[in-house]
């Protein structure tokens, strides 16, 4: 995973609550066995006026002019501002893959669904929870004639708005560390392999039915 670097980006306001992962990346694109290439189909059913299919050339598809991602102000957005419970529904990691592939690195909402929230950190995306009052304020300034820009400072946990204010945010220290260092979780867990082995030895004594002999050893 690439290290998370501080950046200044345009904020795209997606003013909807309970945006589910089916909306973020519709199911027909989940047939891919790759991790990349989902960006053009991010929010496919809202973004285009026709039906998207895997393999279809997205460049000439009719776009929905009313959908915020098609607004020229937000074309290069890297920060998505949205409402509560963003990312609910299916556990598909294709949702953060699509957001990252489009270029989003930071998501700001009052709350996120849990599986989605976890998946973001595995893909270099920083999901930021802010109080509803601050979210309301950000929506009010993000919709101006000039797009709102925010300078994201993860080490100091500060958002600096192009309109002047500064907002602090909270993030789990371990997750912050992993983002900043671009750490591979599996590598970190492997450092504790002796403890895993010791646990398995204890568990084998307490619950032998969970170990070989359960009929699942590969033929």
């Amino acid at each position, binding site marked *: 995973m690439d290290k998370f670097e501080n950046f200044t980006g345009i904020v795209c306001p997606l003013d909807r609550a309970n945006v589910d992962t089916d*909306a973020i990346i519709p199911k027909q694109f989940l*047939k891919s066995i790759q*991790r990349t290439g989902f960006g053009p189909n991010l929010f496919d059913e809202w973004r285009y006026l026709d039906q998207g299919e895997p393999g279809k050339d997205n460049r000439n598809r009719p776009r929905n002019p009313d959908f915020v991602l098609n607004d020229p102000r937000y074309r290069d957005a890297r920060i998505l501002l949205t409402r509560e419970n963003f990312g609910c529904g299916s556990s598909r*990691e294709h949702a953060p893959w699509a957001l990252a592939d489009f270029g989003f690195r930071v998501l700001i909402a009052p709350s996120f669904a849990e599986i989605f929230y976890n998946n973001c950190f595995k893909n270099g995306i920083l999901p930021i929870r802010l109080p509803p009052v601050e979210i309301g304020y950000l929506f009010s300034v993000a919709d101006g004639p000039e797009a709102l820009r925010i300078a994201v400072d993860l080490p100091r946990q500060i958002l600096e708005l192009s309109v002047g204010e500064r907002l602090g945010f909270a993030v789990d220290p371990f997750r912050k560390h992993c983002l900043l260092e671009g750490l591979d979780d599996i590598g970190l867990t492997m450092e504790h392999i002796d403890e895993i082995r010791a646990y*398995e030895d204890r*568990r084998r004594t307490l619950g032998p039915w969970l170990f070989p002999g359960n009929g699942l050893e590969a033929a």
Partner: protein
Amino acid sequence: MGAKTLYDKLWDEHIVRYDDNGTALLYIDRQLVHEVTSPQAFEGLRLAGRKPRRTAANLAVPDHNVPTLDRARGIVDPIARLQVQTLTENCADFGITELGMDDPRQGIVHVIGPEQGFTLPGTTIVCGDSHTSTHGALGALAFGIGTSEVEHVLATQCLLQRKSNSMLIRVDGILGSGVTAKDLVLAIIGRIGTAGATGFVIEFGGETIRDLSMEGRMTVCNMAIEAGARAGLIAVDETTIEYVRERPFAPQGAEFERAAAHWRDLVSDQGAEFDRTVPIDAAAIEPQVTWGTSPEMVAPVGGRVPDPGDEPDPVKADSTRRALEYMGLRPGTAITDIRPDKVFIGSCTNSRIEDLRQAAQVVAGRRVATGIKLAMVVPGSGPIKAQAEAEGLHQVFIAAGFEWRDPGCSMCLAMNADRLEPGERCASTSNRNFEGRQGPGGRTHLVSPIMAAAAAVSGHFLDVREL
């Protein structure tokens, strides 16, 4: 040590270690694998030169993409076919047991886990699928994960986790006739909201839950995720133990008795404290029908579609307005005036034998109404299909004009050929009524199997008790 909740017990039993910051390394006993969320995980293992830590802790099955008709022809869609083939190849390469498309045990991943005895009480179970919460019905700590975590579990048999808060949803009273586990869980979601349990593990308790069959308990836990919960749990009792007994991958004989003795302790202790308790009166629940694009947008069958103008919260009012526009419904419409075009009985929520038996009872001697373009039953697994056929249920459905299909996820998420066309309305026993879930532009109304059956034979939603 004070009184523990069931969640505390499951959590404590699976801790490998804690980090300084309180993150736990949690041991995972079992992983279920399907074709959609695993290819990139296996590829990740390959790229890093890693192997699964314990092949026998995994069980794979294709379900999302499999056709429910003419299975002998294979999968027509080349992209879907490649994904299913990729699962088979990955399982062969890494030594993981797969119940392939032609295996008589194949079915929906959350149906076959318990059915085959792979899901056991007291275990931690994960799958790259949010409805993994289903398995909590057996007193297992079960939750959905993303593909990176699928890879993490394959490689290490562990996950990094923080403990969730605990919520007790205590359901007391007797469910009325025609009111099922599905109505109960829809009513709960309507009450606490689609994010009402975010950050929580829910334990469903109380006499009503105790009285549910295992099938009913699985329906309830299946939809815990629709309230945002990390997991849903139901304490182990004799119903659980008898369900697991003699299942193929479950311990057998003396080993089973030893396991069962351990499992009987998988209940919340008397006096255990929960962070939040929600009491529910089962007797007050009516059959439920969703009217919107989130499972919390639900009403009793005797109710009406709400008016966004009555909603004081502007964000909620906006959501309601959008949902009604998408669903093609006017405020104030009686639920019983809504007429579906299609009826789908299936999914990991409601495709088990009890669901099919109950639906067949409603359908018996009746015909699918003329306004219904398609009514289909998709059993959850090969063994369920075989059992239903042994009982003659398929004849009941077919005689009434239903299609009787092969097992898979099917029209719950429409990754295969089974889907709604734009604007079509469906009475569905599945779990999500999101925009486009059953096909782009499709309109989903979530109901119980008997309510779906009643809608099929009458052409509109109606209280199944009036049939």
